[in-house]
């Protein structure tokens, strides 16, 4: 309105100069007013997306609209929308008659806790959120901008799939997004939140991003839906079973977490965002911290059971170690024998990786190796120090693991740790056996500080296994030999005397030690040899 009145005034001032100009001036005024009105009208229309009826339908499904989601996700008043006036260009099937300003996606930038984020939010009320050429262009635009300045990208996915009316244009759009995802990978963090259907080619954009989250009961991810599955393989399966949140967070490992509903999901993404650096050239964020960095944690002194075969929950260790027990766990329901996630130590974001003896004795198997490897690589890519808590009896033996390629998959975690140049601090809480000892951020893989708790046992294997090999011909004295082996190897000394652990520390002092080390390691510079890229065993 301010702008309008200014134009109007200048037009009025020009009147007396030349009466001849009056007619043109009048039409110019009208034109200006008309344009302004059109802008307002279009804006209003854009804000309504596919219209009130479709918005109501969206709400009825228990889902929020694209704009409502953005409103909850970002700091109040910080959203700057891009391309609100963009329209699709399709003319087939009468599409030219049905256009919505902004088309089926809302894009722009905003702030979360005062830091810049680029985001897109697919609008299911416009053509079912389907991906048109302009939809893809809008997304690619903000992704490029995000890379230019170094800020994360959050995608809120709620789309029926390709805009079939646009044909191959839509496919090109997907590919453009994929290419942008790949270019942005390792440059800025990318988060996908699946808040509705996401099927076919569309699934690969989230799959390329760093983190994929889902909303329970309202989101689905699959290559082909139940109908096609039925037609091709005669398998009867529901949407939920095929690609619901449970499937992907528990069974497939495609999603990194699931939330109760839209509101819960968006609140949680805000929390995650606050842990992340903005780009690969930014330091791991340090936030004001209420928790004393030198807090003694008495409960850690008794967390490892006296019985060396008894299970305990590594999450207990994590929660008491980190600032305020705040831990954003990644993939909490998948491969539970390894715990990964973000936490803070004295305000600084760290990545936590821990074997969890509570599940499958904390062994490394195919799934846990992959889960751990991907997380370690994220941390390394974005300068997040890695704290590794080791209690691992080894790699899981058996045909299913060997046939599944545990060698290849286990190598991923090994590769990830060996490649990582960020600060690496390792605490061996109990078992560190065999090859798995090497893998878990050992000193030999350039661990910066490697500690053992008094309960640590660093050895090639457990006593029973070792004795059955070493003394296979002396089974009668197995017990005696086991005792001897335990005495020799089931303690931190063999590793400590060789310098494979830097110190044996009191568990309750662990927090203090790690906080000191992180401070010291802030100036760590370590570079891998120049290469085009490594060849991780995929």
């Amino acid at each position: 309105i301010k702008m309008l009145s200014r134009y109007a005034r200048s037009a009025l001032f020009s009147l007396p100069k030349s009466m001849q100009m009056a007619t043109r001036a009048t039409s110019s005024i009208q034109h200006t007013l008309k344009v302004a009105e059109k802008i307002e009208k279009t804006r209003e229309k854009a804000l309504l997306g596919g219209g009130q009826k479709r918005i109501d339908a969206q709400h009825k499904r228990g889902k929020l609209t694209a704009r409502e989601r953005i409103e909850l996700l970002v700091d109040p008043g910080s959203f700057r929308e891009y391309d609100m006036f963009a329209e699709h260009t399709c003319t087939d099937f009468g599409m030219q008659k049905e256009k919505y300003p902004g088309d089926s996606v809302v894009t722009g930038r905003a702030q979360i806790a005062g830091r810049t984020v680029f985001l897109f939010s697919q609008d299911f009320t416009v053509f079912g959120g389907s991906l048109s050429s302009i939809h893809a262009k809008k997304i690619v635009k903000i992704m490029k901008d995000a890379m230019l300045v170094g800020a994360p990208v959050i995608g809120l996915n709620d789309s029926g799939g390709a805009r079939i009316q646009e044909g191959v244009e839509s496919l090109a759009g997907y590919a453009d997004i994929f290419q942008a995802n790949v270019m942005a990978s390792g440059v800025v963090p990318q988060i996908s939140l699946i808040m509705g259907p996401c099927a076919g080619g569309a699934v690969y954009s989230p799959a390329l991003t760093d983190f994929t989250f889902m909303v329970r009961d309202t989101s689905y991810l699959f290559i082909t839906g139940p109908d096609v599955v039925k037609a091709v393989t005669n398998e009867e399966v529901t949407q939920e079973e095929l690609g619901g949140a449970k499937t992907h967070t528990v069974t497939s490992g495609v999603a990194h977490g699931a939330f109760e509903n839209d509101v819960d999901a968006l609140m949680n993404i805000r929390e995650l965002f606050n842990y992340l650096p903005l780009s690969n050239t930014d330091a791991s964020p340090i936030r004001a911290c209420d928790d004393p960095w030198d807090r003694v944690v008495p409960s850690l002194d008794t967390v490892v059971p006296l019985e060396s075969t008894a299970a305990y929950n590594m999450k207990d260790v994590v929660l008491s170690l980190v600032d305020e027990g705040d831990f954003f766990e990644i993939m909490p329901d998948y491969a539970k024998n390894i715990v990964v996630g973000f936490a803070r130590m004295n305000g600084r974001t760290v990545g936590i990786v821990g074997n969890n003896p509570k599940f499958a004795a904390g062994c490394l198997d195919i799934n846990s190796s992959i889960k751990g490897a991907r997380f370690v690589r994220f941390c390394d890519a974005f300068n997040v120090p890695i704290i590794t808590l080791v209690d691992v009896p080894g790699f899981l033996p058996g045909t299913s693991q060997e046939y599944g390629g545990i060698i290849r998959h286990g190598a991923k975690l090994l590769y990830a740790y060996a490649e990582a140049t960020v600060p690496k601090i390792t605490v061996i809480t109990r078992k560190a056996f065999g090859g798995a000892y090497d893998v878990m951020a050992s000193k030999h893989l350039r661990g910066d500080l490697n500690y053992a708790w008094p309960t640590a046992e660093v050895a090639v294997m457990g006593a029973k296994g070792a004795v059955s090999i070493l003394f296979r011909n002396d089974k009668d004295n197995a017990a005696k030999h086991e005792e001897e082996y335990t005495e020799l190897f089931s303690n931190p000394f063999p590793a400590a005397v060789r310098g494979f652990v830097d110190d044996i520390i009191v568990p309750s002092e662990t927090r203090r030690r790690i906080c000191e080390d992180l401070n010291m390691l802030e100036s760590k510079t370590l570079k891998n040899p120049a290469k085009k890229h490594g060849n991780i065993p995929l």
Partner: protein
Amino acid sequence: RMRVLACVRFAAHKGLGQVRLASSSSQKKYVDLREDRGIYTTDPINYNEAKFDKILIANRGEIACRVIKTARAMGIKTVAVHSDVDSNSLHVRLADEAVCVGPAPTSQSYLRVDKILQAVKDTGAQAVHPGYGFLSENTHFAADLEKIGVKFVGPNSKAILDMGDKINSKKIAAAAKVNMIPGFDGEIADEDMCVKVANDIGYPVMIKASAGGGGKGMRIAWNDKEAREGYSLSKQEAKSSFGDDRMLVEKFIDNPRHIEMQVLCDKHGNSLWLNERECSIQRRNQKVIEEAPSSFVTPEMRRAMGEQSVQLARAVGYDSAGTVEFLVDGKRNFYFLEMNTRLQVEHPITESITGIDIVQQMLRVSYGHKLNLTQEQVPLQGWAFESRVYAEDPYKGFGLPSVGRLSRYVEPNHIEGVRCDSGIREGSEISIYYDPLICKLVSHGKDRPQALARMRDALDGYVIRGVTHNIPLLRDICQEQRFNEGRITTKYLPEVYPEGFMGAQLNVDEQDKVLAMAAALNARKIARSKQFKNQKRQRTTYVDPYQMTFKFVAELPAEEGQGKAVAVEVKFDKGDDKEARVTLNGKTIAISGDMNLAQPIIDLKADGKALTTQIVGKKAGEITVVYKGTNFKVKVLPEHAIEYIKHMKPKAKVDLSSVVLSPMPGAIKSVAVKVGDMVSEGQQLIVIEAMKMQNGLHAGKTGKVKSVTVKEGQTVDEGELLVELE
């Protein structure tokens, strides 16, 4: 390895940066024993008096610690016994020596007379203090000790035998002219006899183990069916708890108070009564809150009860500390219930009001000393309460055991007049093997209101994380009007909470206060999330977060659709993060104080009035705070969410009538059905045992058993599926 570990752990307790690993076992154990003995003003320790050199404590947990503390204060060396899982327990650390007597199950460790006798011999202990439970009322144990010339710190074995057997004790009590309840004079052989006797006396009746105590092996029956079920359950419980399953039946006095008299006797025929304790606040016959003295007892009644108690003690030649329990009806008639020939759980409240260290007196008289006091010298000073803080879920039947690790644990010792008797510390495990008692929280004040106010403060300042605990219930009772007026009976809980305990019920003002507090803390959380120290991008557009206005929508309770969402505005006064002004429902509440989000206890002020709270959880969009002992999950969302949360769909609930889930962690005692069986609604399907209590689990509907996922002896977690119906 364990020894090395133990040293390491002691070293850690010194808590400073320079801690080194202890390499030599000669390093002195560091335990702070500077107990405040200031409360023991009556007959304090006489260091010139002869005493035992060394005693063994045949118990675990808080009572073992309690006995060790007095023994050490007297200069007596102590020996702890423990099961293997207890190797790192507090009582083991406090003692000068420790002996492992077996694996976790009590029947293989703490109840093993042979192993404990061996430990006595090996360590050369001159006396054994049995604490309560376990071997404390085991006559064989006391007699065996006598045989090897070791003192049993408790009454002589004959007195235990006479009083420990409830049938016999009644006869003796009646002969000693103690007031009696009508009942059957003898042991009940089987269910049929139980039903017959019950009918003779007239329902309701109390079925209880002859050897019982502490509510175990005890059931009330109102009809024949309950009599049968109660008989068999109690008998089994008695067997596993006391190794003695003889049963008794007597008239159950409805609506009574439970008041007991502490007595103290020596071997020279001297006996004292140390005033009464009221233990009427009970659930399932287990005490919840005790107080001394009782607000119901008049001085005349006190004297009468005390004198009868002492008559009984004399009649059996009693020579230690003991307790005579009475049921008291509304007309102040009191009836003999039983005599407990041991140190009672709730002895600290008597200590508080008399200034007498009962453990010290037990050790003295056991050694052979005379009591130094006369009855006139026993004071009654002030008022004391004891809250039994248990690891149990008060929302289920006023308390179902829970287990877990105390991930955070801070006792409210800083409050004046407060004493915490506990045997655990941060990091301790509450396991299914033992009693789920966390702590006996005792408050003492000049009068009942002051002691009660201190108890409330202590409960507010108590931090327990990692296990479900009953503080919400304890705190609510301390607030409740009837309790405050002293109008209590053993039926208090079911009468005050007819629907079961459901947490503190808040009025509108209190609700607003909780909402305001949660909103202020959430504002602080959000403001802090903007306080990055190394993110330099928005330098010129940076706004001090404490200068902003935070607009939220807050809802209580957190379940969508249940509560009413209200708009809340939070502003920090002049950017001061300690002064928040919260506007909601048309009023402004000032929340001030250090809103430190890492501290377990937060001392705030709401409009200037003290408000102690704890942040139990701060998930995204949800702050869980403690108010009046109860956890309140408050949803705090950005203001626009007020419209949006309406669209969120409630999640479908699992139909619980067709499944039987384990209500608590425990061991399966028996499984009564197999797949394919038809069961009727209410039929008992499974008996689960946890913390020595047996609980029957019943079918939620009539139907066919689809699956049984557990078998006898198996241990199960809370919420585990046990039986599924079609």
